[in-house]
């Protein structure tokens, strides 16, 4: 085993992304689906930081992308949870299978 390179870090973030995808496919509860989306966003953030550190160390663009992604993810989680609580109030359930009013 030699020095850790960019490739190993990309392996970790790939695995984390597909773990999040598996959760998004199998879960039927809105809160757990939101948690899977957070995992996927985090794997993207790891990629941005790793590419910036190992390939373009003279710039800081990847770090700023990560900062803005974290900010937007926080806003998205807050709005999603407000919607989930509103849905619970009208349907008494946060299961995606129970909210079918707009299904065509």
């Amino acid at each position, binding site marked *: *085993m*030699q*020095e*850790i*390179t*960019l*490739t190993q*870090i*990309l*392996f*970790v973030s*790939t*695995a984390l992304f*597909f*773990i*999040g*995808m*598996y*959760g998004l*496919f*199998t*879960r*039927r*509860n809105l*809160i*757990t689906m*939101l*948690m*899977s989306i*957070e*995992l996927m966003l*985090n794997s993207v*953030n*790891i990629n941005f*930081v790793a590419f910036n*550190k190992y*390939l373009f*160390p*003279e710039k*800081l663009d990847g*770090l*700023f992308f990560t*900062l*803005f992604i*974290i*900010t*937007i993810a*926080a806003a*998205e*989680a*807050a*709005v999603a*949870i*407000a*919607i989930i*609580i*509103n849905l*619970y109030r*009208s349907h008494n359930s*946060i299961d995606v299978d129970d909210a079918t009013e707009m299904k065509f």
Partner: protein
Amino acid sequence: MNISAIIFYAISALILSTGILAVTSVKIFRSAIWLLFSLVGIAALYFWMQVEFIAAIQIVVYVGGIVVLIIFSIFLTQNSGKEMPKPAKSKIIFSALASLFGTALTYNLISHYEGFQMSAATPFNNSMNEIGTQMLSTTSHGFILPFELVSLLLLAAMVGCIVIAMRPLDTTAASSETIILKNKEA
């Protein structure tokens, strides 16, 4: 195998194992706690890569903000000790296969790509000083415009959350309940 590599593999094992537990656990509260550990592991990975500012932001925003928000919403909407119904066997199998094939394909692509040119010539300067200067600079590599836009987005999200989650006023409450009742009858 030097100590840095061992620490990297330990952090990766923590992130991936707690991530898998977070998406497979049947109790929703435990799932949230496993997510918390996974996010702490990602912050540790940022510390390992020596981007301390991002690691601190990760802990403050994700661990201190989003996970706490998720746990609050679990308490508001769920019976947190109850077990969630398990998904169908066929769905588990096909989702796992899709994820495994996706992972294998991406692994294959990454491990055969030779074009990464490591430039170790210049040191990676990511001090808070540098980040702050570039964030608020108006020159060609400054990030002042996205900074201002994201502040507007946060304000809009805050107002939107209040509007969405607010209990409807008395006059509108009656009408919206009748709408729901009509929907249920239909």
